[in-house]
């Protein structure tokens, strides 16, 4: 059942030779060597593996690579080269939003997804926007401050 699957990964066309049911997370980590997406639970609860597929935030641990065929996949490795990422990074640093860091790449993707939908989010919208991403260190409020700060500092970017 192994087949050729074409997709766009971080703005580059790639062709994979994999089982279409292989988890996108495993394809990214094992076949593509992109280690920024983390496996925290493997069942879609924690969001540490969050990536965008055609602009939609998904848990790559629940996403078969076959479903990404001919689609655009954006991971933290692609996102981290953007201006919006830089604004988010500075804000996360300043707000103290990172401790152990294991949830952080996924949290950045969730923050990006939220700001795309709501460039000027209210506190409650931020809470909802990152509610699919678990963090056990920070208690979330400093992450919420970071997203708020980014939305102000990056006004016009989203």
């Amino acid at each position, binding site marked *: 059942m192994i087949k050729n699957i074409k997709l766009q990964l971080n703005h580059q066309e790639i062709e994979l030779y994999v089982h279409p049911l292989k988890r996108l997370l495993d394809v990214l980590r094992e076949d593509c060597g992109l280690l920024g997406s*983390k*496996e925290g639970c493997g069942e879609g609860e924690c969001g540490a593996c969050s990536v965008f597929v055609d602009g939609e935030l998904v848990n790559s641990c629940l996403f078969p690579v076959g479903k990404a065929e001919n689609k655009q996949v954006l991971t933290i490795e692609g996102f981290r080269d953007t201006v919006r990422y830089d604004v988010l990074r500075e804000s996360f*640093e300043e707000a103290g939003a990172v401790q152990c860091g294991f949830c952080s790449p996924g949290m950045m993707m969730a923050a990006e997804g939220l700001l795309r939908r709501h460039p000027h989010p209210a*506190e409650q919208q931020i809470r909802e926007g990152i509610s699919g991403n*678990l963090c056990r260190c*920070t208690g979330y409020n400093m992450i919420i401050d970071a997203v708020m700060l980014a939305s102000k500092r990056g006004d016009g970017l989203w």
Partner: protein
Amino acid sequence: MKTDISAPVKRDDVADKLAGLTCYIGDMRNEDMLYAKTLRSKEARAKIASIEYPVMPEGYFIVGKNDIPGRNRVKLLLEDWPFFAEDVVNYIGEPIALIVGSDKAVIQELIAATKVIYQKLEPILSIDDSGLLPIYGETNSFADYSFGKGDIDKVKRIAKYIYEGTYETGYQEQFYLEPQGVIAEFKEGKATIYGSLQCPYYIKNAVIDCLGISSDRVRIVQATTGGAFGGKEDYPSLLAGQAACAALKANKPVCLLLERNEDIECTTKRHPSRIRLTSYVDEGFKLIGLEADIVIDAGAYAGLSGVVLQRAMFAAAGVYNVENLRVHGKAIATNKVVSGAFRGFGSPQAFFAIEMHMEHAAKEMGVDPMEFKLQNVVKKWDKSTTGGIFRDKNLLPEMVQRVTEMSGFAEKKQTSKKPRNDNKRRGIGLSMFLHGCGFTGNGERDHIKAHVKLAKNSRDEVEILISNVEMGQGINTTMKKIAANALEIPIERVIFINPDTDRVPDSGPTVASRTIVVVGRLVYEAAIELKEKWQVGAVQEAECSYQYPEGYEWDNDSLSGDAYTNYSWGVNAVEVELDTLTFESKIIGVWAVFDIGKSIDDRIVKGQIDGGIVQGLGYASMEVMENQQGRFKQRSSTDYIIPTAMDIPIIQSELMCQPYSGGPFGAKGLGELTLVGSPIAYALAIEDAIDAGINSIPVRPELLMEVMADDKKY
């Protein structure tokens, strides 16, 4: 540079963490590397009659008890915990063997095809089970301690009020975001273990025993650790020993990573507890006596239960001054997962009991709980439960005052009593607590004997060589700040690298809120020494060893004296809104004041405060883990629920500072303290909303239904 040590500085680990560039154990790659998966017991208690393995394909190995060259016991306090089960299994999930090979899917198939033939034994599933074959010793307890002071029999005769209560707390899973894992390799007779861990030297000692080789042939290197909270204090020693044996047998590096649900089901948790308290109060509402009987559920092997129990027992009287005291405690063996270390280490259980008890006793006597508590709090020069002395001023009255102002406590107490037109009720609760920082009793003096080193290179950069790990709590930054401040050099010239036991001395484990107050102090002293002998461009070193401070005393046989050399303090208030139809509750507000001495970095401190409070709120509310017939009902990340961003409000916190002269810049411990008070304040808030007593956590809607149906209120 000499700057305000509390002013936040940039954490230099953050940029890589955000970008996904940080290398955790699961990100390490090695071409030759094999994977290991664990064959686990499916029975709570049984003899292993036989194991029928399928034929191993070439390059696949079984690694079990017979592959351990040294001792099949994890070196911790007692020597009962095997790396691999021997002739019996004692809990569901206990490791029996590893299957090792190159393809994870093949390994899974081999494990599924393995048949373990069990002869079932009657398991001990509760701390009340009696008459069954003991798991440990003759009495089935790993630890049984008693201590006391004064004359409890006398106060029994003279007390005007006697109040009794029993309090229970449940399991709590650490749920660090990064599951546990190690990689072991064996080269030229030397074992190197990379891992997600808190205590490099605990693991080193465990692997030395496991392999039966000399100390110079074992090296432990910490991989950046994705959260730990105590969960990576004890268990990585077991994983490291197993993986080391596998690497030895396979003659290749072996990676042993747990999956999330395996981690939830099989690794250590916070001890469930049952605490019975009897207090004796005189006509002036002075707490004149207290009896405490503490039982913790230790699970199948001793692990760290003895010291968890001690911390719980020493906290039996909470923040209150009691001159006549009798405390008894037991850690009971059960056929369940080994209970272990988790932020607070016995203290959250004991504080829950005493704070609820004081509240209920006050209500029973018809006095205001806050007044009753404040009347009885310890003051400078009062004695601790073990007869140690509180040497510093305690700011509790001021802290309570401030939290009540911040939260509008008095007004909310009134509001919660007013009838409403909807099915919602509000309530507010307030807790007072302390945490003794550093190892309990003689730990720092007689067992750990921490040693630190600073190494200056010819470019005048100074590396901090300690065995304490960055696991999210920020010591990569705070330790550098301490050294830079003492040396009066820019922080950019101070280096901190994840510890490697071939490079760093043993400054002890990263536990017990000891890293800043104990190790940070040694780093400070070494830095002062280095500064005094500083020669530009010269390669230089400075070292410092722990010295037990003068004037303190501890006797480990009678458990008397100064159990801790310093205490941090906290006051928390929580407000909830309860739906009286569904019994679901929502947290409306959280207010907190802490005295941690001098803050080493206000932003890092706030991160610890927020994170600890939220873990505590989870513990008291939604984090339910029940064991049925030896198996957890909540054994996946779908079933075991931890707080999300939707479950908590903004936390308003402030610091007050009573410095500790033995800490760096007057700092005291922080990490664990932050979890202790919020579960209590939450339970008291629920209690306020329903006007009936809460005696156990987590407070589930089902529990509230029962409590509210009960006629006896407290």
